[in-house]
């Protein structure tokens, strides 16, 4: 489950919205941000810039981490006029997505905007992503072979 996050972790709400933004495409973020209030002025502190990160994994009985491979990641950090700093790391090389995601992260840290943005931006994106996952799961479930049924037929 990609979005499963232990709720007792610090910053759990922020982790959730950053995860949702990292999976949303730039058009969707731009459309939903546009329906909110006027966007404030902001400054790019770093990026957007693409780079490689090493993905490490644990596999096998020993549990030792090994280098699975490198993936392309685009990151961006922005600072709004109100002084909130937003970060984004997104898979792939969509610079516009990383910049919008960083801006959304900065705006979501502003208590005055947070609850409205959670409702107008994060919840619709999360619902769309969940619907996509459910659709894939439903398609996969339709191809599932019921071994129990086969045994019953032979009996």
């Amino acid at each position: 489950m990609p979005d499963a996050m232990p709720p007792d972790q610090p910053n759990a709400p922020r982790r959730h919205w950053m995860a949702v933004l990292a999976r949303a495409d730039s058009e969707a973020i731009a459309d939903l941000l546009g329906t909110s209030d006027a966007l404030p002025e902001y400054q790019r502190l770093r990026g957007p810039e693409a780079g490689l990160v090493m993905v490490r994994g644990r596999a096998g009985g020993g549990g030792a981490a090994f280098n699975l491979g490198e993936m392309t990641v685009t990151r961006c950090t922005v600072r709004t006029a109100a002084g909130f700093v937003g970060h984004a790391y997104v898979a792939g090389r969509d610079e516009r997505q990383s910049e919008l995601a960083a801006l959304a992260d900065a705006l979501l840290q502003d208590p005055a905007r947070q609850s409205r943005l959670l409702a107008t931006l994060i919840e619709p994106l999360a619902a769309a992503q969940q619907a996509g996952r459910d659709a894939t799961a439903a398609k996969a479930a339709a191809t599932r072979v019921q071994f129990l049924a086969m045994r019953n037929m032979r009996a």
Partner: protein
Amino acid sequence: MSASISLPGFADPVRDAQSTFRAVLDAMARPGRLHHAGRNLTAPAPLDRATAAVLLTLVDNETPLWVDPAAAPARDWLAFHCGAAIIDAPDKATFALALSLPNLVALPAGTHEAPESSATLILQVPALGIGTRYRLSGPGLRVPAPLAVTGLPADFARIWQANHALYPRGVDVVLCADTTLMALPRSVSIEEA
């Protein structure tokens, strides 16, 4: 940490870092000659533009950085843009940032087997080209070169000669002021003029 990063780094990270690296390289090869760096950078207080540019260029996640307590307001900016581990003990530093001459003996001077493992001190001074006069001689200088610096301690020539005497060990220094920089490699000999 995020609330206190208020300024961007290089506007063009590749070109700006390359031109600053070139300036530091030339400065090390020609001790005492003035070079420029960081003209289009907005540096965080209390750093000057050249100091910030040299740090952005040289310091990264593999080089522990020791920061003079007087430069502490710039720590978050350095940690974010350089990705460096900022350490409290100067004896493990690869780079050191100071606004006044620290105890050079406390910085790593390298070993005879690996003299390159010494520290490089980035020292910000009030002004280069005016102030106390010194005479430099050594590799890279066909004839002794003049050096004028404001803000070094009165017994700097004596302190430096102790560092120079360690050669091939010893600390290298990059002096920065506003947008100018000048290097003092450990190989150079300094006397008051």
